[in-house]
């Protein structure tokens, strides 16, 4: 698999054209509480969509709904223009890689990979070349006779991946597939999975709670919080325009600084959001005090006290720390984000609700006038950007 990125086999892959998936008003209630609530978004065909969110926010539940292991209590899932209803998992044309890999411990690697083909009655003559091809892609040729217990974590991961790939199903779901690997292997596998997904043109839904994984791999990120979609968009959109303080704090490492606007000398009532790299030391501006500094090699993370709230500033390490402990910070005005102090939702530069929150604002039954104003603001904002 190491050479997936390089061996761009020119031949067409045997995969059917990957379909997209739409989730419409999807909900799942367990007896006591709702794990997933009113989730609607599009999973584009042939792209990698990451479901991102903190532990317990319903990512796995959502994935299991798509796979058909759980039945939704509300809403529907539409794939290739067809509502999946209560279609059993096997008939959804979906492959899945489980967090624990779910390898059959009593079967060899080869038997594990071909399990699906074999239960579906694929002829031996067809199975062998498919196994050989997949084993070669994944670099498993020498391990085919081993049992899973005789493999390292990374190798087990590849077997699980191979089992998904050999099925030649166009949609692949992955539930935190890398969480059991060490940091270095995780970084390698990220690249490999992404390369594989692109090479085979898979529609992939990838669950993680690691925002770095999400940022590096995703075509689209769906950020979830407490069973709801907090924000969706490309990694760039979400990073640059977090829809809420939750999104602002969840994405980015270190996350976006949130400081009451009045402490930065801005009109009060709102929360100001600034990415660490968008702040810099200045001769004038908001007064701040250096509390500590963390050296990362290329960068220096400086923890500041800005009029009582903590903030982190990132700057090239070679710039060094200012000699004076009491100083001022400045920021690029276009990088400043404002959030409603009460709801945590992003405010457009004009003061209204921003584009990403439009849906939520409507949902919150904001009165029409306000919504119109928001739309007007959004239009203005869009014009301004264009």
């Amino acid at each position, binding site marked *: 698999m190491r050479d997936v990125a390089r061996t761009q086999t020119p031949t067409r892959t045997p995969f059917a054209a990957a379909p997209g998936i739409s989730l419409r008003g999807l909900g799942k209630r367990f007896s006591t509480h709702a794990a997933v609530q009113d989730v609607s978004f599009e999973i584009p065909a042939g792209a990698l969509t990451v479901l991102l969110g903190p532990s317990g926010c319903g990512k796995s539940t959502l994935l299991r709904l798509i796979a058909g*292991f759980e039945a939704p209590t509300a809403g529907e899932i539409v794939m290739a223009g067809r509502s999946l209803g209560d279609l059993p*998992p096997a008939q959804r044309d979906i*492959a899945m890689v489980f967090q624990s890999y*779910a390898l059959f411990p009593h079967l060899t690697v080869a038997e594990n990979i071909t399990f*699906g083909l074999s*239960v579906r009655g694929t002829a031996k003559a067809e199975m062998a070349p498919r196994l050989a091809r997949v084993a070669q892609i994944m670099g498993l040729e020498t391990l085919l006779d081993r049992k899973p217990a005789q493999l390292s974590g990374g190798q087990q991961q590849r077997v699980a991946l191979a089992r998904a790939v050999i099925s030649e199903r166009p949609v692949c779901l992955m539930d935190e597939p890398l969480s059991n690997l060490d940091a270095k292997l995780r970084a390698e596998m990220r690249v490999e999975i992404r390369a594989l997904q692109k090479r085979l043109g898979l529609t992939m839904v990838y669950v993680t709670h690691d925002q770095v994984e999400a940022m590096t791999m995703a075509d689209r990120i769906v950020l979830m919080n407490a069973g709801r979609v907090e924000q969706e968009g490309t990694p760039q959109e979400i990073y640059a325009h977090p829809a809420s303080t939750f999104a602002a704090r969840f994405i980015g490492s270190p996350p976006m600084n949130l400081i009451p606007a009045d402490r930065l000398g801005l009109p009060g009532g709102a929360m100001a959001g600034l990415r660490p790299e968008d702040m810099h030391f200045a001769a004038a501006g908001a007064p701040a005090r250096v509390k500590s500094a963390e050296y990362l090699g290329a960068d220096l993370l400086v923890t500041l006290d800005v009029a009582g709230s903590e903030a982190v500033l990132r700057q090239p390490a070679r710039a060094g720390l200012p000699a004076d402990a009491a100083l001022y910070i400045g920021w690029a005005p276009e990088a400043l984000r404002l959030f409603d102090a009460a709801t945590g939702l992003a405010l457009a530069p004009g003061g209204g609700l921003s584009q990403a929150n439009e849906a939520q604002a409507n949902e919150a039954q904001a009165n029409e006038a306000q919504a119109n104003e928001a739309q007007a603001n959004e239009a203005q904002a869009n014009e301004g950007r264009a």
Partner: protein
Amino acid sequence: MRRETIHAWLMLLPALVVLATFMHVPAVETIIASFWSTARGARPSHFVGLKNYERMIADPVFWQAMRNNLVYALVTVPLSMGLALVMALLVQGRVAGRAFLRMAFFTPTVLPLIAVANIWIFFYTPGFGLIDQIRGLFGLHAQNLLGTGSTALYAVAAVAVWKEAGFFMIFYLAALQTIPPTLIEAARLEGASRWQIFRRITLPMIMPTTLFISVNAVIDAVRLVDHIFQMTQGGPDNATNILFFYIYRVGFQFWDTAYAATLTVVMIVILSLLALGQVVLIDRRVHYK
């Protein structure tokens, strides 16, 4: 190193003493006794070589007991194990009244075999026993299952199956709980049918338990005779006389202790060979993590 060895032996000593006193010494004594005659009145016990074994080979009741025991084992072992697995599969999932079912299946295990025998004597009573009452509903005539040579052995085997299945079910239940649900989900996603999942995942994964249970079931097929005392006394005409029961008779009713020792040696040899065979044979097909 020497100190550690001494320590190890010291720690093993209590168990060794108990095992030796109550198992190894009697076993060896039994083997020795099988080469001697039974002391009778004025004639003390004397060495007879293989005489007891020759007598055994010529003894038709011994051979009948062996045949009976084989049939008894062939009925009770697979049936009790199969039933145990079926019951375990039934009550492992989300069934309504699961706790009640589990308890119901397990109850026969808690009862002493003597009590179980009493219950079944009532089932089997010709004319007004439960079985004949049910047969009566369908207009079938009364039948003496325990008193008929051709059915008696199966009738006592049924009691053993009923008694054992619940016990084995507990082991199967425990084994089934250790199979991660994601394995089943992964197989389902691949399109495996319920039967394929059972055949290709569940069954191989509970193989160690199956081995364990089968050893126990075989031993019990030789050992469980309490109910025979109560229900048939080995009759009619030795139809339910199995090896262990025969040994008891020879030893404690005919007081022919030497011959009883000879039969016991045969039983121990057979049991040991069976256990060994099972471990070696099934071991190859068993997956241990």
